[in-house]
């Protein structure tokens, strides 16, 4: 018989949940889907240019940049696939009836699930970046060192996006609602608000999608800065570039804030 003394510590349980949730993700159709998407983007970007008779950029940084511009969308799709349903499905699909009566704290469970989402999306991004690096080496003869920095920002964006997805998942009744909320907020609300702020000359540095710009900007050496272009006499547009530190702090801030709310909501939620 297992007794009170046998029950693993919270930290050990986080590791157990992470391990089995990863296994669950790997067996899921979503995982096959995201790997197929990664392959599709890689193949299309690599094959279409030669077919159209266009040359690849000979500069490795700008070669890589073509590929990296797709990372943001990959992260969002990953968050929708592996994080949006993580908590809501426990209620909607009734698996919580099995898991919550186990001797484990709800927050332990949430953190384990969150880490598993990061690992799985991180693995997909890792594959993507490695293939891009290999292609860059093969086609341009070099790999920009900054690609590692770009991968770092992609992971930071994953950390923030998954946290927001967990927040929706902890509050909303169904997986579908949670996915819709995620898509609306990231693809519409953040873009619209970001664009409006820029137009009224306010730096939208605190928006996650703005901070995510660092994924591409970090490929450039030196790292770019905010610049204003004069267009005619009274018109100017400002391209707000998030600083590296700023982007890091903003993304971590969103992650922590969202996770805290998600934990509170998930603990209060009941069958």
């Amino acid at each position: 018989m297992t007794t009170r003394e046998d029950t693993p510590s919270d930290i050990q349980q986080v590791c157990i949940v992470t391990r089995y949730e990863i296994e669950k993700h790997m067996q899921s159709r979503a995982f096959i889907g995201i790997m197929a998407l990664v392959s599709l983007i890689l193949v299309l970007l690599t094959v279409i240019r030669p077919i159209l008779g266009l040359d690849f950029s000979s500069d490795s940084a700008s070669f890589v940049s073509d590929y990296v511009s797709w990372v943001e969308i990959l992260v969002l799709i990953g968050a929708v696939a592996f994080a949006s349903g993580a908590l809501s499905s426990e209620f909607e699909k009734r698996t919580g009836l099995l898991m919550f009566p186990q001797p484990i704290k709800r927050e332990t469970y949430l953190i384990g699930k969150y880490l598993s989402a990061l690992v799985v999306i991180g693995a997909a991004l890792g594959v993507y970046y490695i293939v891009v690096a290999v292609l860059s080496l093969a086609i341009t003869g070099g790999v920009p060192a900054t690609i590692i920095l770009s991968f770092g920002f992609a992971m930071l964006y994953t950390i923030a996006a998954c946290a927001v997805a967990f927040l929706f998942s902890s509050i909303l009744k169904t997986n579908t609602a949670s996915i819709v909320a995620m898509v609306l907020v990231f693809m519409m609300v953040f873009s619209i608000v970001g664009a409006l702020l820029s137009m009224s000359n306010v730096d939208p540095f605190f928006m996650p999608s703005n901070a995510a710009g660092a994924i591409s900007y970090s490929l450039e050496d030196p790292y770019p800065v905010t610049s204003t272009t004069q267009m005619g006499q009274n018109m100017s547009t400002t391209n707000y570039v998030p600083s590296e530190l700023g982007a890091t702090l903003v993304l971590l801030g969103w992650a922590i804030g969202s996770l805290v709310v998600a934990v509170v909501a998930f603990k209060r939620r009941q069958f």
Partner: protein
Amino acid sequence: MTQAIQIEGLTKTYGDFIAVDSLSLNISRNSFVGFLGPNGAGKSTTIKMLTNLTVATSGKAFLNGIDVVKDPKTALSEVGAVVETPEFYPYLTPDKSLEYIAKLRGMKKDDIVVRTKEVLDLVKMSHEHDMKIGKFSKGMKQRVAIAQALMFDPSIIILDEPTSGLDPRGMVEVREILLDLKKRDLTIFMSSHLLNEVQGLCDSVAMMNHGKLLLNKSIDDLKKELEYTRIQVDTIKHIDEAARSHLSENPCVGGVEVSAANQIIIEFKGGPEDRNDLLRRIDSELKVTSFFEHGNPLEEMYMGLIKESR
């Protein structure tokens, strides 16, 4: 010694609706308690408060003396539960699902392998041990859920209608498993609508309606308390009004109900001699073809109590 399950003034409200109304109930160690009540009585809600699925509005509940509201992790460490019809992660196999839960509970790797085989054998699911659960029928999932609750040899088992969704053979099998568990050193708290099941398995029953506890008694006491036994008698001769009223004059007979032309149901009170006497009388008058106890005492009691509490 602390009680296995101790419930003190437990209350759950949904808005204005009181689903469980300051329920107090003690379940002592090594007992097998049936938890009865009509649909919507509050059984599942009570069980959910005991298993960290729902937070009580007020009141307390202790499992092995540990407050399940304050410290669910410790309180549930020796509890196996099947609540309503739980679902498993569809992409995992029974082997993996049991392994996941067993790891969370701190079982050793070797024990997990041995025990998984044992419990899947017990619920007759060893054949499907490495198939994805997503494809399983409701009853198959319920079997795996029961296996999950037994996996780590719990000291308390909480079951919410464990045989619901099972085929007749499955019900018999689960009943046999439960009967076998009864011999062991553990406490079982089981809600059920199957009164025969409860009467056959449980030592005592707790019954609720409208969120309130109506009764908490041992099955033996219940039987003793029940005034009348209902006896169904089938006869060759037609039962007319004269025969009926003649029968009701017998001091051992409480009431007589003619349920068909050749069938009566008698409310009987008395010892074996009285019963034999009654049988002889009816036989000589109406020619008896069969004579047996009708219904079960639990059912009588249940119907009586529910009628009163409507």
